[in-house]
């Protein structure tokens, strides 16, 4: 298993020759294109979700707007533009207006670090097909999902109403809890890659031959982290079976009850953007991002193989993951809220710690040529012993009753 060094340690080569108006123009054009793509993906995803779930439940699903109802989401969106919307009298107006903005901005900015293709050359400029490659890399994702919580929290609080407040504290506690687990699961990837930059992580998972699927792509070397990440990301995006931010039964809606019209649409958009972003991050971290086999019958260095094929592989992987999210939505019933919090704090965080330590030992062992057949089980046993000892200090059900 060889991992390649990052040929672009300084980040996006677009900025290598200083900064002028053309470079800023490039950034703006890339932003517009990605914004458009993300918007279209959200529209398509919502239609796709409704159609697939309808199929799984023996229904027809949306079929009126456009062929196969593909324009249904667009029609819904346009309708929401024309809906009257009044701010409740008890709302804290500035914060109330700010909240959807914060939510959507955080959701969009999180996508910025996703590498969705290879490298593009236009004239004298070379750039990554990726909006931004800040040195903090995946920490950017954690920061943005942290800011996204503000959107939810402020929306619920500023509405000046009871149900939104309940919904928002519940949703933000959930998102925060799983963000801790998600951050720790990402550590399981970083010990393999040794870099935070998403471009660097993707470059280390390059496709060499069919064996790369299991040896280079990190889903198998970091399988524990992968599983934890998938569960945490599902909870982080409030996706079923963890969809507690919107619960018609208990909350009469969720944190956005008092929002209507386009502001509600923005929240809705942000939610699905988050879903797509998380799937894209899963593809980036564990499934090789845009890497995949090139088309053999074409020129290896030709524009199809350099530009189009990586984007194709990225989109294919993204939609496979998105299909899995729809599948999850259609097949699993909701958890109970206390079980959700228990899963996050009492299982996933500890599991992520264990996984990070054991993979850490394996990676260092490989580096220093230890005998891995001895070191790996020893590390696993030691970690489990420490874990078992700590868990012995944890109160059982009966003791908890006493504390009460």
């Amino acid at each position, binding site marked *: 298993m060889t991992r390649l060094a990052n040929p672009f340690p300084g980040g996006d080569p677009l900025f290598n020759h200083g*900064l002028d108006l053309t470079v800023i123009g490039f950034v*703006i054009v890339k932003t517009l294109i990605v914004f458009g793509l993300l918007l279209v993906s959200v529209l398509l995803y919502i239609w796709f979700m409704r159609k697939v779930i309808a199929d799984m439940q023996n229904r027809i699903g949306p079929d009126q707007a456009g062929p196969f109802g593909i324009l249904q989401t667009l029609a819904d969106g346009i309708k929401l533009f024309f809906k009257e919307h009044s701010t409740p009298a008890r709302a804290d107006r500035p914060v109330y207006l700010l909240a959807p903005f914060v939510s959507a901005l955080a959701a969009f*900015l999180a996508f910025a670090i996703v590498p969705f293709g290879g490298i593009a050359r236009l004239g004298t400029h070379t750039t990554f097909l990726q909006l931004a490659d800040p040195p903090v890399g995946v920490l950017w994702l954690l920061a943005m999902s942290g800011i996204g919580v503000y959107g939810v929290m402020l929306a619920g609080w500023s509405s000046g109403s009871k149900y939104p407040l309940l919904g928002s504290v519940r949703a933000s506690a959930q998102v925060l809890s799983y963000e801790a687990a998600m951050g*720790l699961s990402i550590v399981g990837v970083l010990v393999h890659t*040794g*870099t935070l930059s998403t471009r660097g992580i993707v470059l280390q998972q390059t496709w060499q031959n069919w064996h790369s699927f299991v040896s280079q792509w990190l889903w198998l070397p970091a399988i524990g982290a992968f599983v934890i990440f998938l569960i945490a990301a599902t909870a982080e995006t409030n996706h079923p079976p963890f969809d507690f931010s919107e619960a018609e039964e208990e909350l009469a809606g969720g944190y956005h009850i008092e929002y209507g019209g386009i502001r509600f649409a*923005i929240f809705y958009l942000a939610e699905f953007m988050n879903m797509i972003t998380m799937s894209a991050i899963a593809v980036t971290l564990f499934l090789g991002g845009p890497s995949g086999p090139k088309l053999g019958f074409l020129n290896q260095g030709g524009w199809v193989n350099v530009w189009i094929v990586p984007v194709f592989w990225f989109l294919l992987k993204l939609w496979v993951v998105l299909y899995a999210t729809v599948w999850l939505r259609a097949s699993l019933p909701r958890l109970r809220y206390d079980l959700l919090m228990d899963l996050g704090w*009492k299982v996933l965080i500890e599991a992520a*710690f264990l996984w990070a330590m054991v993979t850490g030992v394996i990676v260092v062992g490989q580096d220093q040529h230890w005998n891995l057949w001895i070191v790996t089980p020893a590390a696993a046993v030691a970690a489990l012993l420490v874990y078992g000892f700590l868990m012995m200090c944890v*109160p059982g059900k009966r003791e908890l009753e006493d504390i009460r």
Partner: protein
Amino acid sequence: MTEFYRQYLSVAVLIGAAALMFGAMLGAGRLLRPNRPQPEKFITYEAGSDPVGGWGQSNVRYYVYALLFVMFDVEAVFIFPWAVNLKSLGVYGLIEMAVFIIVLTLGLVYAWRKGVLRWA
């Protein structure tokens, strides 16, 4: 200007452009939608009945979770650099991190014993 800051400049341009686009969406909504205010439309929603009382209450338990999260978020600041530089730190780094994580988990176990992670 160093390479480091140039990467962040693209982030700044990005934030500006994204803010403008969402601003345009919200602004378009403002121009397009009708506005016919009536007093009933400004009452907060309470499942059909007239709203009672002022601000709502929520369980203090959520805030304890938020505090716990702060602990784990700060810890990420220490763990991420360790993971990135794992190979150069070697065995020393492994032992240090094991001790660090055990101490951290002790904090979680303490909270657990205190009944913080318990509902209802």
